[in-house]
């Protein structure tokens, strides 16, 4: 851990430096702050406010009214909020595990081979992430299709599994796989770079000492990439809470009674996706508000547990 060194400027430059610091900070942060304020903060506030109205396509943007917590009451009147919540937690947990474990696995495996080969594998794993979601989902839909078209059926036939329409019979499997392959690439990317950044001398020293590959991984690699793993964990958790696109494009929350519906998808469906155009913006906003609180809560817990403070190390150069 690098130590933070302090520089002391001559007295008369100190005050000037501090003043310049705040202005400088403003300059550098300015564009980001402006964008975030206008396109994140403002809409977030508007969305929260909206959740207390009855804004929908039936009211239009000019005809709405304040209705207090009615939307929230309506959410809990639904028989589905609990199952959907359950789905969301399961979805996040399982896909997260897949992402991190597989991502780490691929990262580790791909550095223990010829660099070119490793590169090829990593490139393949990155394909899902860089593909347009529509196209990628299309591929999985086709793979999961019923006979004679679906690919999966041909794959499992030798194992004696009956051919089926996977999206209906095993929707969770599809959901987990499609999201997993995309998410794993994120972890793989980050962790591979992290592993590669570990100075070679450490590895050589270990080899000289006769350590096995497994020991090297356990004792050297893993501890040194602790923070990237943490970053991946936290970032992916929050990503997963908010993600719904692939589910929407394949099972669409089905089949039937919200079998694979997650909270974010529920919000999306209510606010933006009704077959007959009955978009319930305010209701969706209420759902989103709850989602945000959930996401926030979990992130806080995660960050606290992994000591966020250390992740946000103080800046290196402090001019006082």
């Amino acid at each position, binding site marked *: 851990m690098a130590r933070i060194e302090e520089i002391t400027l001559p007295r008369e430059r100190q005050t000037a430096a501090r003043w310049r610091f705040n202005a400088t900070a403003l300059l550098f942060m300015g564009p980001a702050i402006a964008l975030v304020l206008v396109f994140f903060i403002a809409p977030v506030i508007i969305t929260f406010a909206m959740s207390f109205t009855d804004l*929908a*396509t*039936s*009211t*239009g*943007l*000019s*005809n709405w009214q304040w209705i207090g917590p009615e939307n929230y009451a*309506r959410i809990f*009147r*639904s*028989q*589905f909020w609990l199952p959907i919540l359950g789905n969301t937690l399961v979805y996040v947990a399982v896909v997260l595990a897949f992402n991190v474990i597989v991502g780490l696995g691929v990262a580790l495996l791909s550095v223990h081979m010829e660099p070119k080969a490793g590169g090829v594998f990593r490139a393949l794993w990155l394909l899902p992430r860089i593909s347009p979601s529509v196209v990628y989902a299309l591929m999985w*839909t086709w793979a999961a*299709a*019923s006979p004679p*078209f679906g690919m999966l059926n041909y794959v499992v036939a030798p194992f004696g599994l009956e051919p*089926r*329409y996977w*999206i*209906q*019979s095993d929707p969770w499997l599809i959901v987990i796989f499609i999201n997993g392959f995309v998410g794993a690439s994120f972890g793989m990317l980050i962790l591979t770079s992290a592993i590669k950044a570990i100075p070679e001398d450490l590895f050589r020293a270990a080899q000289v000492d006769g350590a096995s590959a497994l020991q090297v991984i356990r004792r050297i690699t893993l501890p040194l990439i602790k923070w990237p793993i943490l970053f991946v964990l936290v970032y992916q958790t929050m990503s997963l809470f908010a993600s719904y696109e692939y589910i929407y494009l394949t*099972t*669409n929350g*089905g*089949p*039937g*009674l*919200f079998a694979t519906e997650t909270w974010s998808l529920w919000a999306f*469906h209510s606010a*933006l*996706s*009704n*077959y*007959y*155009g*009955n*978009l*319930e913006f305010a209701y969706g906003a209420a759902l989103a508000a709850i989602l945000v609180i959930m996401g926030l809560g979990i992130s806080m817990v995660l960050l606290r547990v992994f000591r966020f403070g250390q992740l946000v190390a103080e800046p290196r150069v402090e001019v006082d």
Partner: protein
Amino acid sequence: MSKQPSRGVDLSAYRVSRRRFLMGTGALVAGVACSTTPVSSGTQAPAASAGTLEMAAWTIGPDAPSYYRRDNLISAVEPLNKALAGKPTVKLDATFESGGQWGDYLQKFTLAAEAKTSPDIILAGHENLAPWVGPNYIIPLDDLIKKYQSEGDIKDVIPNLWNAMKLKGKTYGVPQDTEARPMYYRKDLLAKMGWTKDKIDGLPDAVKKGDWAWPDFVATAKEAIAKGVVGPGMGWYTRTSKGADVYMFYYQNGGEMQDAATGKLVITKDALQKHYQVHADAVRNDKILTQAIYGMDGKIFDQTVMDGKVLFFNAGTWKWSDWQTTYKVPAQSLWDNVGFMLIPAAQKGGKPVTVSHPLAYAVTSNAKDPDLAFRLIANATTPDLNSRHSVTSAHLAVLTTQADDPTYKQDKFLLATGYMLDFTKFIPNHAKFGIYDDVLYRFLGAVEQGQVTPAAAVDSAVKELQGQIGDELIVK
């Protein structure tokens, strides 16, 4: 970590490239900003000259053969301009969405309507109009219809169709086309089962009269599977996704969807349960319908039924044309092997049903000249224009006069299915119908999957409906 002296670092190599980068980016951004002129959708731009009125219209298929929805409006410009004699001259910018999804199209309109950039004329399903009435996206047309009775062929619109255009007594759309959703059947498979040609040909009539009803339907499908004429679960393929025709079975069992007086949505518990039971039985007990039907890929559905692997299947009348164009089934082969009839009545002696989903042209509140916009629509509503659309896309006539139109008359299929409009029902015009439908459809899926029994489904569904749209719902 090597130390580099602060002075003497040769940055000159960077200098030029940085500047160039900056200039390049700046130029690019400036170029885009300049090229991104404020979008004039035709309704906002000032008229090119005092005597020109520019109008915009949006239409959609999504089936590709329905492009006359746009082209008819374009064809209507000439007669309109002739009538106007230059005061002013109308120019039309009309678009047609081929492929794509209804939801996206409708949302696009909603957002545009709010931003006051919507077109003058919008084509939509009749039930889409209801939610647009509240926020005033579209205008009532009753006065205009009265005023321009003789424009185009407005006065000859099939009367029953106007009902589908009304909300609380006011009319909001002009019917553009309609269709029916028959029950198709494979003649070749029935023949294999031993049916005589007469019996096969006489089937639609028997259904129409109520002589051949749902119990017969189920029995026949079971027999087909038992005899190996079709594979298991392939006796009957119903609709694979959401849509108006799902409600055919609700209506078949006497269900009601809208209260005429108050305009509120209605749910008839008994009918709902029977509707669910029909599906549950088909999938689980009688096993004539495959469980994979719910959410089955549309292309797989079409391929399978066109390959002659399914005995009975539900589809719209427009599919007849689509099967020929997109799936390249020769017309004669279709006539020889595929028949069509109404949905059989629930019991012998009952009334068969089908559902129609008329599309409508509506005039938006953003129209610069509502009178002219309406007149354009009226001029597009003539026997010859409507007929060419009907024939090309296999939709049914909206005008009584179309039955005499030479183009229309040539289409055997349309003529043969025309009678179905006498038995047809519509889905309601209500701003919250989408929510109603969402709940009921989900439970239908659950019933088909065997996740819940029909009785339990009805109770839960009604409870959910009451929780979500309680004040707009009447439970019977």
